[in-house]
């Protein structure tokens, strides 16, 4: 419906060493099930249109993708307005297979952190090795960002896509722009 708005209504900031932009609403479906089961895999891949990622990985193309959340949990990404029909499709594929498939699109805030300094801005907030040869395309990390949970992957060169809880979107936005303040270059990577 047209009245749906993201947590920060598309806030953006670029007055420092990186650009922070709230992404538009992103469809997200939590899928829990045994990955060894063909139906579970098919439920994810059929609506995301990408291959199953390995442990700690994500396969994401534009607004579609699959992120590995835990040994029995995937985050399936799809366009926001297709979530309802996709959950129905997934449930049809899953049939009686013990699994859980639930819409979490509105429970999240999504940010793009971009620019040549994006890696080091993020490295101020997350305890993750973000060296270019250590954190590469296809990797997905659930971690702690300062004081809240977050997850991220490399969306494009020099652009991280970050997911947090919706209630903490303002905090995460403020955190990212604090970490990207002018003159705070680290020159580490």
């Amino acid at each position, binding site marked *: *419906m047209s*009245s*749906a*708005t*993201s*947590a920060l209504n598309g806030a953006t900031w670029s007055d420092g060493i990186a650009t922070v932009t709230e992404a538009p*609403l992103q469809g997200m479906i*939590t899928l*829990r*099930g045994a990955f060894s089961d063909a139906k579970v895999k098919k439920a994810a891949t059929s609506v995301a249109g990408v291959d199953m990622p390995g442990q700690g990985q994500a396969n994401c193309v534009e607004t579609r993708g699959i992120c590995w959340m835990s040994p*029995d949990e995937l985050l399936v990404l799809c366009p926001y307005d297709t979530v309802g029909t996709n959950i129905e499709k997934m449930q049809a594929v899953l049939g009686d297979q*013990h*699994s*859980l498939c*639930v*819409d*979490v*699109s*509105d*429970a*999240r805030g999504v940010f793009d952190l971009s620019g040549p300094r994006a890696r*080091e801005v993020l*490295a*101020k*907030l*997350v*305890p*993750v*090795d*973000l*060296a270019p040869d*250590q954190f590469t395309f296809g990797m997905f990390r659930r971690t702690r960002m*300062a*004081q*809240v949970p977050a997850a991220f992957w490399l969306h494009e060169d020099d652009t991280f896509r970050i997911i947090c*809880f*919706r*209630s*903490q*979107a*303002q*905090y995460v936005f*403020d*955190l990212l722009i*604090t*970490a990207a*303040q*002018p*003159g*705070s*270059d*680290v020159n*580490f990577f």
Partner: protein
Amino acid sequence: MSTRLATGGRLLNKDKAVRFTFNGQQMRGFEGDTLASALLANDQMLVGRSFKYHRPRGIVAAGPEEPNALVNLGVEGKFEPNQRATTTELFEGLLATSQNHWPSLEFDVGAINAKLSRFMPAGFYYKMFIHPRPLWKHVYEPFIRQAAGLGQAPKGRDQDTYEHFYAFCDVLVVGGGIAGLIAARSAAKTGARVLLIEQTVHWGGRAPVDGGEVGGKPVDNVVDELVSELKALPNVTMRTRTMGAGVYDHGYVLAYERLTDHAPEADGPRHRLWRIRAGHVVTATGAIERPLSFAGNDIPGVMLASAVRDYVVNYGVSPGDRTVIVTNNDDAYRTASALKAAGLDVPAILDARVLPVDSPLVAQAKAAGIRVLMGHGVSKVLGGKRVTGVAVCSQAGEGAVLEEIACDAVAMSGGWSPVVHLWSHCGGKLLWDNDFAMFRPDVDKAPTGADGSAFVSPAGSANGHFGLAELVGDAHAMGHTAARSTGHNPGKAAAPDAISVEEAAMAPVWLMPQGAGPTLRGKAWLDYQNDVKVSDVQLAAQEGFESVEHAKRYTTLGMATDQGKLSNINGLAILSDALNQPIPQTGTTTFRPPYTPISMGAIAGEARGKVFQPVRRTPLHDWHDANGADWEPVGHWRRPYAYVRSGESVHDAVMRETKNVRENLGLLDASTLGKLIVKGPDAGKFLDMLYTNMMSTLKPGKCRYGLMCSENGFLIDDGVVARIDQDSFLCHTTTGGAERIHGHMEEWLQTEWWDMQVYVANVTEQYAQIAVVGPNARKALEALGGMDVSAEGLGFMEWADGTLGGFDVRAYRISFSGELSYEIAVGASEGQAFWDALMVVGADLGVMPYGTETLHILRAEKGFIMIGDETDGTVIPQDLGLHWALSKKKDDYLGKRAQQRSHMADPERWKLVGLETVDGSVLPDGAYAVADGTNDNGQRNMQGRVTSSYHSPNLNKGIAMGLVLHGPDRMGEVIEFPGTDGTTYKAKIVSPVFYDPDGEKQNV
């Protein structure tokens, strides 16, 4: 006097003068100066007053070990006390003031303490201020607090910003001296990822000052070459102004980068705390020279010999025209050479040793025409606010003065101590080296990681290697060790050649002269910053403080901001002597991080101002804020306590909202309540175990209120469970319970009931949930239009999916207020739009938003319990009269067995009742009801307490709930609650259901 030399000063840019202010006086230095070198260049020898006796104190050292030259820096939002002048880089406009004196540095009233020093020995405070007892709190403590401390506490809000940075590497090398550079190179050559950090702004450490040759080239050239070589390597990162502060388990290291201390107007954070994970740590942290303990060794102008040559060579500063050198080792002779080379006079070298043969350095000094007095020492230093001379004595004697030598400065050297702090932080052991009279790392007892292998290696002088050849070889090898331990192959690369100058053995000298009597010992300082003398440590030993940790605390030796960098070894040597035991038996005190103090700002990092703490916002947060919300923190959430209109008090607003819900229509933002999806073939079985009541019998489309207990039987959460379909439930939790109960469920599923087929998902934030409450609730929803919300279509304790006003919603007909009530869940992204729509249709129905306090009053009027009010972790459902929610049909549920324990089943447990004051006033929340008699401790017996208390505007009186002994059996009885205001409240025990006991209002 101390002054700037015409030549020299390798670290200075003499083309760029820098102006600064010390105690209001304009001074001039050069770019490259430290504040200490610039003060000396301006003949500012006196820089502060000591902590206890207010003795005049001057600069002693040239590095982070400096105990005396602590200053206040900056003003207001840039003010910071206790900054070491020796590690403060000079910048244009620097503003410094000295500390711990009144009215002025030159004339300090507190210096009277020095005259009283014989009455203020070690333990003085403990002995003096213990009697009479009451005086401590009212007289002694305020007085001591007034007198104590060095710098002032900052008053302004810190203007600067700070941040953290997470860095990862294979090998972290701490210390950018010659050893650190070589270790970094040998590790880097193997391909390891190397991070090299140096606390100062310069690479090379002492090597360029002390000289020598490596690979046939002068060592300062070698430093430059190494720096260029390392900078060119892609796998090496180098940072200056970055101090290794602490080493912790699993290769975790904190480093402290000072970004703009030297350029306060620059953009960006002031300090950055590096949170490093290193595969292996090399501590190339160098060594610190020890002072000698002789009378007057604290008079301004007495400096470490190495510091004297640092000032001459690095900064072109002379500490005085005539410098007497006093030493127990050869190294101090290098200071003589440096002074001579600068054209300054060295009237004498007092060497406590008697060498059978002159070593090369001694011979060199003699050849330069310097008078070398072997077997001699300082009886006492002459002078007050600065050195005027030394009285010479025989080291072997008791201090009889043989002659007096006039001088402006004294350069002392008592030998060197490796900086073992970082090695020791995580458990690296030390061994005593008799040849150098020092503790050095025991490389066989290194700090170990999870796999039991060493993860720290000391290198160079930090490992007790002082000759250039040994030092270079050791650093090279340790770089390889570090690389190897991180899976890199060092191959056969050899260490560069270096030549060590032959030096005669040093002689341990802990007191000068060795037979110094009480007068001299009472002026021989060990700890400059805390004013601890040789006599104090001896007294501590005499009084039985034999453990080094006890002696430390009794005397305060090593407890100042320098943490005893200069004083510890000398102090424990004196202690060992007093106890007549070898030094290693005495041992050292514990080395704890940080190496030198780091700013509180750096520790906090970004967490200040608006990102001090994450505030969780519901989808309606901004609306609440714009409509008068008086915020209440609930966990990390902010919820409106009430919506205050102009001209209203918060209490007025609560009363208005509470009445309006009962009479018209209220809207509550209930989005914060936890929502957990529990799904799977075993979901019913699982919930039967988690809740005290039966959930598996719930029909799809129905809701049931449930209680959750811990294994110990105590109530931990409550909420309404809705059965979605055969396999799925939606469990509501309390606001604070969402994450906690989610974790609780996952823990049981993952650790105990792993064979149950159940998945849980936390969808709390997926929905905005709005309670639509009051007699007009149905009318409002019907005005929106869509799904059937009639009494028949959606009965009490039922839920249904549908649309309202075009929004996809899930409507629950549940009530926490006793009114006709619906909770409508809508996608969080549409929450604001849906709320707006409700406000529009509610306009004619008397709609008002209401906050958490109204929620509380409404539920209290109905006698509904609140987790956290009626429960506090010690309350079980039976206490609250919730027996109806404890299933007797189930074999088991979490807490069932615990609730059968004798104490839990005890009829003496206090039980929930309603309480009504006889005069209609409000009982104080938390008040206790008194009973007759006293307990074994002579305290008044208690028979109950208030758990919730409010003024009810609907009933127009105070209502309360409480837990009371035999409460339900004592209806109508009046009990007494003494308040903290001196009055006693009388309250009648009544039913906790004050309003609509038959539930007619919610069932319409």
